[in-house]
């Protein structure tokens, strides 16, 4: 009876995984299609990969996506870590409402975040335009640009905006788990608080920082809606480009880029996991040796 259950269970799980991966596998398979469609197989070919590399529009948006994601991740990680430390050191009464506000971009529907930022930028540009005109009119030394539009800058700000909460959510628990006496011990042994921070707090929360950064990067790469509303017409992420293409004609170049993306992510995750597993094995071997 138990064996039967186990088989059915495994079967169900396998079916779910098949469901999750079938579309992706099909995408990958058809990226090697010699023909022009996603439904009719015409033979093996690497044409689409070649065409992909030459397609300026797609490559530009890949570049934009990677740049925005990396920049936003780095900035968000640094800012988020400091913010998390700041929150950790606050009194509960002050921290709770601030944390609630912090969680809003995470919990809110993407479209609401995108829309609100879009409105904010528009309003801000309006005000700026007035201010710049007035300022330019007042003097002739510095000429401020009067017309600001949405573009890479606003896109970056938006990404940083929804990335920081994930970093804070990742670093925060590590701070709470940290033994409070560690910092006191460090200071007792002669560290200034800056040194204590560097030598004691940072190493303790490093796993949280790393996982927060990874999460932020994932969220940036994955995003479509928020980018759609805050990139304006001058910048375009990969998702936005694909969306534009689906309205007209889609070529299997999309499949090619999907495959590349998938393989890259797979390799990255595999490396991370193998490293983790190896560290675990080393650690338990050391324990057993003693």
């Amino acid at each position, binding site marked *: 009876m138990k064996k039967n259950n186990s088989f059915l269970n495994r079967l169900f799980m396998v079916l779910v995984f098949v469901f999750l991966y079938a579309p992706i596998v099909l995408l990958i398979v058809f990226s090697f299609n010699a023909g022009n469609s996603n439904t009719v197989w015409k033979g093996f070919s690497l044409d689409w990969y070649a065409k992909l590399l030459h397609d300026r529009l797609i490559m530009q948006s890949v570049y934009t996506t990677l740049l925005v994601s990396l920049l936003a991740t780095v900035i968000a990680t640094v800012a988020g870590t400091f913010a998390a430390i700041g929150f950790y050191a606050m009194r509960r009464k002050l921290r709770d409402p*601030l944390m609630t506000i912090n969680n809003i971009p995470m919990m809110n529907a993407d479209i609401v975040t995108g829309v609100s930022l879009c409105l904010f930028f528009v309003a801000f540009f309006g005000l700026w335009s007035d201010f710049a005109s007035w300022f330019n009119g007042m003097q002739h030394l510095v000429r401020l640009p009067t017309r600001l539009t949405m573009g890479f800058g606003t896109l970056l700000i938006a990404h940083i905006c929804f990335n920081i909460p994930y970093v804070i959510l990742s670093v925060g628990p590590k701070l709470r788990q940290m033994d409070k006496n560690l910092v006191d011990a460090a200071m007792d042994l002669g560290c200034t608080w800056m040194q204590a921070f560097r030598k004691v707090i940072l190493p303790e929360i490093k796993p949280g920082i790393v996982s927060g950064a990874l999460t932020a990067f994932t969220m940036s790469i994955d995003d479509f809606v928020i980018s759609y509303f805050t990139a304006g017409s001058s910048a375009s992420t990969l998702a936005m480009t694909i969306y534009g293409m689906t309205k007209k004609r889609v070529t299997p170049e999309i499949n090619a880029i999907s495959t590349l993306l998938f393989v890259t992510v797979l390799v990255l995750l595999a490396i991370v996991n193998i490293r983790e597993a190896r560290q675990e094995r080393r650690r338990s071997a050391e324990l057993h040796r003693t």
Partner: protein
Amino acid sequence: MKNKLSHFAIPYVIWMALFVVAPIIIVVIYAFSSASGGFTLANFARMGTYAVVFTRSFKLAIIATIICLLIGYPVSYMMSKEGPRFQRIAMVLIMLPMWMNFLLRTYSWMSILENNGLLNQLFQKIGLIVLYNQVFGTDLQYFRLINTQGAVVLGMVYNYLPFMILPIYSVIIKLDRSLIEAAHDLGANTFNVFRRVILPLSLPGVLSGITMVFVPSVSTFAISKMLGGGTEMMLGDLIEQQFLGGAYNPQLGAAISLVMMVIVVVCMWVMNRFGEGEEQAVMM
């Protein structure tokens, strides 16, 4: 020293005021303004004309959430019973699609569901369509799969299923094993242990999962455009239209967004009071 450290958060607090609070305030202002700038409740009244859109979005989101629950809970439960190696690999496999872009995942279904897409090709090859025609006396060349509400629900389930699995799984995995043994010890068989111990204790994870699937589902717009063909308008499409689409009416869009935010606040409140595991769910 702790006091000094709390100053670290000041730059971020300023950032939040600028880019989180201020935008929301602006949305609220827009929601209550008319095109000429005065205060009005007309926007909310106009939302009434779109009641169909509201009900459609809610209906589809609820269906998608239920399906995710029906699939996600058993998967989480079964995963929790496997060995640590399987669990680790399974976790990676479940999260891997999340690393690919949301749009790509949705796009991948288009070619499968198209009229002469892969599924229909399969149905043709195995003679299912001919059989269907014989049974129902119809004259179909293919099943209409894409550009239906069903396709939209499928897209939602596909994209958000991991968000249901992760919180439930992370709560079940943390359950004290001795509670299950105690229940067995007191006479509960496997079914009763599940019903009386595991299920009630996993409810916080279920609530988190429901929130994390329902909110994006009810507000989606790309999925409905790509898989729904744009014929069945949903809340996300409606909002997008008001800002970047044909009907330019940011005030109305803001009003709808405000309603969406209220829904999210309610979900957040429920999750805070009863939910658990959402932190783990958004982490690796």
